[in-house]
């Protein structure tokens, strides 16, 4: 039987969700009997190939995020928005209280300790979107895995359910954060 292919990426996120993914610990070993990784920090593959499941951490803050997300949507049968940033914008979306111009001016022109103030215009740098957006505002999302970050148990549960061909369902204890 061919293995289930999983891709993961971090957009406007902190990699905390990926760290938490690793908190599945030794269960990862068992999981690897059934799954293999496509694009992910574990493999260093640059472009994702056709996959079964895509896990996306972080929201969308720039044009490159949009390209990566679209590629994931195109290649993955099931797309999961992982963590508060992917679902709501999270911490990066705190900049939404300001205009993107104010943000850039603060960072590159007026901030403390800035020398040679100028807003960078290198075409290598992706342009910022005017606001940070959650994933579902740009592509269709199949499932949401809440938490900041979701626990290792939550990752394990959603993946086990999907591997078993079941509709994923997290018990209340895994959705309770205080």
């Amino acid at each position, binding site marked *: 039987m061919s293995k289930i292919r999983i891709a993961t990426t971090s957009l406007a996120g902190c990699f905390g969700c990926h760290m938490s993914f690793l908190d599945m610990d030794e269960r990862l070993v068992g999981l690897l009997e059934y799954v293999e990784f496509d694009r992910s920090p574990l493999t260093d593959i640059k472009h994702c190939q056709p996959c079964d499941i895509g896990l996306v951490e972080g929201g969308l803050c720039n*044009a490159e995020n949009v390209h990566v997300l679209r590629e994931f949507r195109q290649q993955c049968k099931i797309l999961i928005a992982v963590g508060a940033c992917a679902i709501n914008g999270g911490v990066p979306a705190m900049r939404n209280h300001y205009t*993107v111009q104010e943000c850039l001016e603060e960072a590159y022109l007026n901030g403390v300790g800035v020398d040679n103030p100028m807003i*960078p*215009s290198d075409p290598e740098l992706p342009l*910022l979107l005017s606001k940070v957006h959650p994933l579902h505002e740009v592509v269709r999302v199949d499932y949401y895995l809440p938490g900041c970050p979701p626990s290792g148990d939550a990752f394990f549960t959603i993946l086990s359910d999907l591997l078993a061909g079941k509709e994923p369902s997290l018990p209340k204890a895994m959705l309770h954060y205080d």
Partner: protein
Amino acid sequence: MPKSLSSGAGQQPHDHLLHRLHDLQSRFLHIPPLEIAPLATELDLPVSQVESVIDFYSFFHRSPRGRFDILFSNCTSCGGLTLMQQLCGLLGVQPGVTRADGMVSIDQTSCVGMCDQGAAVLVNGRTLVRLTAAQLPHLAQLVNTATPLDEWPADWFAVQDNIRHAGLLLNDTLSAGDGLRAAVQAGADQLLAEIRQASLRGRGGAGFPTAMKWQFCRDATAPEHYVVCNADEGEPGTFKDRVLLHSYAQQVFEGMALCAYVIKAQHGFLYLRGEYRYLVPSLEATLDAMRTANLLGENILNQPGFNFDISIVLGAGAYICGEESALLESLEQKRGVPRVRPPFPVTHGYLGQPTVVDNVETLVAAVHIAVHGGEWFRAHGTAQSAGSKVFSVSGDCTAPGIYEYPFGISVQDLLEACGGQDAQAVQIGGPSGTLIGRAEFGRKLAFEDLATGGSIMIYSAQRDLLAVVRNFTHFFAHESCGFCTPCRVGTPLLRKYLDKIASGHGTVYDREEMARLGKLVKRRSHCGLGQTAANPLLDLLAKFPQVYAERLLHQDYEPFFNLDAALTTTRELTHRDDAEAHLS
């Protein structure tokens, strides 16, 4: 323990935080920061509480409004937002932004209860009705010449009762004190028995048996008991309490005194929505007349120990304060956030004391029952809905206004009475109620079928029902008190989906996500606001699915915003226009 109001009830309590903030707002056109700490000290309240109250109520502002602060009611029956745009043009202002010379500000507000005589606006808290486009140049000139409101044409402010059909209550032949005289003659036990016999149910919407409520409160032992009349009337399309408070105020207050007699309360409050501020002078005059006639005050009707008086507390633009426990919080000078229930107000209400909160109309009905008896009342209406109901009819009909009929009248009959037969849909009970189409016009207005607090909004075939439902959904998102996440976060998300669909960018996916979210908001919200906020869009989906279908794109997915436009600012700041600087 919250501080009690000046217990010399009977005066409008000048030391109530809401009243003090109303005063500051009208004197300074905002709440000046330097006034906050002294006010808190004077009222013996934490500064944080005063701050939170200022931010909670929409009639208080942190930065100055214009000398003329004009609010357009944005409801579906009389909403005058095109008029608002025109007036903004004439006066050179943006909605929500005070003009540079400080003379005028213009904004929207939720339904002001003038649905039968719109377009309606509040100017510095005073209600102006039947506004038309033709009047706007004159109005603009009065503003620009800083003409005091008292010199504006008086008929602009003339609110009409528009009673189109009177029944049990409105065909009034009672004189002041009839109810109280009958009650003290029969005694409190007998009065309660008559109310029970009458099967009177609350008119505020939920229909709880009134006698049971009064009994629970009476049975609760505590140092004080209170009666509160809920005159917040914030459900869009409802204005019958306005008419009762204008032309039947004596009976409203007498109903409160009857309740006080049963539950042994000494103080009562009329919690009046800020939008009805213009009624305060006449209400105070009625209270004074009742005191003079010994229908309020000490030893009422010479009954030793029957002491009861009423104060009026004025709200400040928050729909949620109609919910009884939020209302009590507001009376206690706090933000109007609904309490966790149980315990219910009948045992733990105002200042933790047993409290009856009743709707205006319920109390009026109690007076008639005291005079004519429970049997008389019970003989009207249906099995589970005794008596009559005062309906507020507005929207697309020839004669909007007040219609009183026995419970059990069909929607169709009511539509014929008001000239609204051509309706394609009717919203029963306001946005939190039920939307019905023609197929359901045979249904009965009664607790056993279509329950309603009285709002009947009629929509002709020319109406875009999606615009109507969008209006309601915006209303809920705006009025959510923010206490619980499903409603605070959920209602703006519902608004976002509807806006997307209405603007022609929605897909089947959006419609389904919206419906899923709507059910979640209904199920998980803390109070009635969140629990009903999705009703309009779900009803529309169930009964008029084509209204959505016509708007949907035939594709799998469409983003919520224009991606390339979202890069405009950064393109300009970086002077870039290369391929990577664009998104398709």
